[in-house]
C-alpha cells in the first residue's frame, strides 16, 4: 500500500511538473497550450538524435535541448500568438492546435513512428528501506522526479516572491494592461512564460522518456493528466498545480491496482467532470470577479 502510494506520488510528481508549465503559460499569457506535450516530445526527439546519432554527451544535449525548447516557446508565442493576442482567445487556442499538428507531423516525417530507447538519466539499484512499517522500495528514477519537483517548486516560489522579474511576472498575470503602465515590459514576461513552460515540457520529456520510450505520442497522456492536475488544482496557482498532480497520481495508481488499467483516460475524464461539478474553481482556486 505504501509502495503503491509512493509509485503514485512519483507519477503524480510528473503530472505536477506538466501542470506547473501549463499553469505558468496560462497564468501569464491566458492561453491553454495544447501543443505542450508535442513540444516536449519534439525536444526529446532532438536530444535523442543528438546523443545517439550525432554522439554528443547526454548532459550537454540536454542543456542544448532545454535552450532549444526555450527558443521554440519564445518564437511560437512571439510570431504565432502575439499578433492575435487582442483579437480572440479561441484563435490563440487554434494556433496551438496547429503547432501540435505540425510538430507531430515533423516528428513522424523526420524520425518515423517506431519507438526509440532513451538513456536513463540516473541508474542504480533501488533504495530499499526496511522497518516495522514494512518494506519500502524507492527507485532512483522516483528520487530524481521528487528532487526535480521540489527544486523547481522552491525555486519558483523564491523567484516569484523575491526577485524583481518574478514580481513582474505575477503583476502581468494579474493585469497585463496595468502592469504595462507600471513600466513592466509585458512582451518579455510573455516570452519568459513560454520559454519556461516549454522547457518544463522538455524536462518532463527527458525524465519520462526512458519509461515510455521516444515516440510521436509519448507525452499525450502526460499532457491530459497535466490538464487534469491543473483543473484539480484550480488553474490559477502553482501550489494547486503541484498538489493537484500529486493527488491525481496517487488516485490513479489506486484505481489502476484495485480496478483495472484500461480505464486510465476515462478515469481522469471522470475526475475532471466531478471536479468541475463540485469545485468549479478547483481544490485550491479562489473565486474571481471580472469586469466587462
Amino acid at each position: 500500500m505504501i509502495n503503491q502510494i509512493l509509485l503514485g506520488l512519483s507519477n503524480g510528481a510528473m503530472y505536477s511538473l506538466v501542470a506547473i508549465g501549463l499553469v505558468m503559460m496560462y497564468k501569464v499569457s491566458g492561453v491553454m497550450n495544447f501543443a505542450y506535450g508535442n513540444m516536449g516530445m519534439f525536444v526529446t526527439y532532438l536530444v535523442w538524435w543528438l546523443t545517439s546519432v550525432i554522439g554528443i554527451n547526454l548532459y550537454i544535449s540536454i542543456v542544448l535541448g532545454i535552450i532549444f525548447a526555450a527558443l521554440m516557446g519564445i518564437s511560437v508565442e512571439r510570431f504565432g500568438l502575439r499578433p492575435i493576442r487582442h483579437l480572440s482567445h479561441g484563435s490563440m487556442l487554434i494556433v496551438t492546435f496547429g503547432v501540435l499538428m505540425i510538430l507531430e507531423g515533423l516528428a513522424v516525417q523526420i524520425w518515423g513512428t517506431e519507438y526509440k530507447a532513451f538513456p536513463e538519466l540516473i541508474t542504480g539499484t533501488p533504495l530499499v528501506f526496511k522497518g516495522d512499517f514494512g518494506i519500502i522500495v524507492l527507485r532512483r528514477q522516483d528520487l530524481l522526479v521528487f528532487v526535480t519537483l521540489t527544486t523547481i517548486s522552491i525555486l519558483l516560489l523564491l523567484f516569484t516572491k523575491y526577485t524583481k522579474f518574478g514580481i513582474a511576472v505575477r503583476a502581468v498575470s494579474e493585469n497585463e494592461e496595468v502592469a504595462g503602465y507600471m513600466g513592466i515590459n509585458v512582451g518579455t514576461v510573455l516570452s519568459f512564460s513560454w520559454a519556461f513552460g516549454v522547457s518544463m515540457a522538455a524536462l518532463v520529456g527527458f525524465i519520462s522518456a526512458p519509461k515510455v520510450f521516444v515516440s510521436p505520442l509519448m507525452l499525450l497522456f502526460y499532457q491530459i493528466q497535466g490538464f487534469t492536475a491543473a483543473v484539480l488544482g484550480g488553474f490559477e496557482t502553482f501550489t494547486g498545480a503541484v498538489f493537484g498532480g500529486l493527488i491525481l497520481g496517487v488516485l490513479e495508481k489506486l484505481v489502476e491496482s484495485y480496478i483495472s488499467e484500461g480505464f486510465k483516460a476515462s478515469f481522469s475524464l471522470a475526475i475532471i467532470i466531478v471536479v468541475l461539478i463540485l469545485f468549479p474553481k478547483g481544490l485550491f482556486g479562489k473565486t474571481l470577479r471580472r469586469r466587462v
Partner: protein
Amino acid sequence: MIWIILATLPFILIKNAFIITILSLVGVYALASLGLNIIMGYAGQISIGHAAFMSIGAYTSTLLSMKYNVPVTIGVIAGGLLAFLFGLLIGFPALRLSGFYLAIATMGFVVAVEQFIGALDHITGGHAGLRGIKFPYLFNSDVEKYLLVLAFLFVSYVLARRFVNSKTGRAWMAIRENETVASVVGVNPAKYKLLAFAFGSMLAGFAGGLYAHVTGFIAPSVFGLGKSLDLLAISVIGGMASLDGPFYGAIVYEALPFFFSRTNLSLSIVFGTILIFVVLFMPLGISFYISRLRFNYLNAIIAFLKKARKPYGRFIDTSFGKIHYIQHGNGRVPIILLHGNFASARFFEPFLKMLPKEFTAYAMDLPNFGFSDRLTSVTIDKYADVVNEFVDNLRLERFVLLGHSLGGSIAMAYAVKYPQRLIKLVLVDPGPIDGLFVPDEGIKLLQKYKYNPDLIRKSLMFNAPTFDDERLFEKVTSDALRIPKRAIREVAEALRTYNYSAQASNVNVPVDVIFGDKDIILSLWQMEKTAAAFPKGRLHVLKDVGHSPILEAPERVFQIILENL
C-alpha cells in the same frame, strides 16, 4: 438550386465510383464540421473531441444495423441521438464555466472513448475495428450512399440555418462575443452553450454513422484526437461562423492528399501550417472570400436572370424618350404618381387597387427606371420637365401630384415650376426640401445593388416594414435591376444638390406632407422643415408606419388626399 445540382452530380459521374465516394466523404466531413462550426463559430466554445461523437455515431449505427438489422437511416439517426445525449453529459459540467474547460474535457473525452471502445472488444471488435459493414442498396451502392449523405447534409444544413437565424442563434453569438454581457441581457449562457454543443455533437453523430456506411470500415483509432483536430482545421479553414464554410474546408481536406501524394510530406504538417496561416492572415476563412466573390460577380448572373423583360403598361413618346406608365380608374380627378428610388410604377399596384372612384391615376416609370428610356446627366429639375411633358402629352389640365421619396423631390421641383397646374401636392416621405445628403461611400454601396437582387429586395422590405407581400417586392426588384449603374450614382448626386426652400413660398396650392414615424431614411425634423416651407403645407405623421405609407397605410393616404380636395 445548388442542392439540386449536387443531387444530380452522381448520375453524371456514375461511371466513376471513386469520385463519388470522395464526394460522399466530403459530405460526411462537411456535416461533422458543420456541427463543430456551430459549437466554435457561433457559440464560441472550443471542442477538440468532435471525432469522439463521430465514433459514437459510427459504432451505434453499425452495431444496430449489423446485429439487429435496423435500416441504415434509422441507425444513423439513433447514432446522432446518442451523440446528442453524450454531448449533454460532457457539456453540462464543462460549459457551466467559461473558457477552455470544454476543450480540456473534450480532449479527455476523445482519448477516453478511443480507449473504451478499444477495450470492449467482444462487442466492438476492439482496436482492430469492424470491417465489411453492409449497405443494402437498390441499384447502385455508391450513388445511394452519396444521396443518403446529401439528404442528411441538407436536413442538417436547413436545421442549422433555422437555428442560427433565430433567437437561439443570436443568443449563441451574444455568448461568443461576451458571456457576461450576454447573461446581463437575459441570455442563459449555460443553457444555450449546452444546446449548441449537443446539437453540434448530434451532427457529428450523424456524420460518424454515415462515415461507417460509406467506407465500410471503422476502428477506434479512426476517430482519435488527430481526426478531431482535422475537423477543427476544416472548420477554421472553411470559415468559422459560416454555414457554407465547412463545405469548402471539407473539399480542401479531401483534395489535399492528391496534391501532396507525390511529395512524401506528412499531411499533418501541411494541414497544421495552413491552419496557423488561416488563423493569422485570413481569419474569416475561405467562405468570406467566396461570399465576397459572389457579392461582386456571381450574383450578377442571378441579377441578369431576374431582370424584368416584359412591359406591363403603355408607352408615351416625349422628347426625353419613351415613358412607360400604367393608368387606372376613370374618375374625374387625374392623379399623377411618382415612385421613389429603386422602385417603379409597379410599386403603386396595391395602392391603385384601393383607388377611390373619383380618381384616374397615372403611375409612370421615371426615365432610367423600369421600362422608360435611359436619360443621361439627370437632375431633379430635369425629371420635373419630364413630368411636365408627360402630363402635356396626356392632355391633363389640372391634376393632383403625388410623389414618394425621390418622386417627392421631383414633385416639389414640379410644383415650384408649374404651381398653377396643381390641384394639390401630396408628398409621401419625400426627399427633404433642401436636398437629401448621400455620402460617396453610400453611393458606392448603392451601386452594388445593381448586381445583388437580394440587397434591393431587402432594402425595399426594410423601407416598408409592415407590408409583407413578398411577391410585390420581387416584381419591383426585377424592375429595379433595369436601372443602369451610372444612373444610380447620378440620381443619388441629384438628390443631394437641390434646394427649393426659397421658391417653395410661391406654391399656393395645398401641400400634404405624409411621414411614417418608423422611417429609417428620413427624420421628423426634415419633414417639419419641408412642410413649413410651403405656405399651405401640413404635416401628417402616421404612427407605426415606415418609409412607404403608400404600401403600408394606403387608406390613410387616400383619406389625407381626399380632405379639402
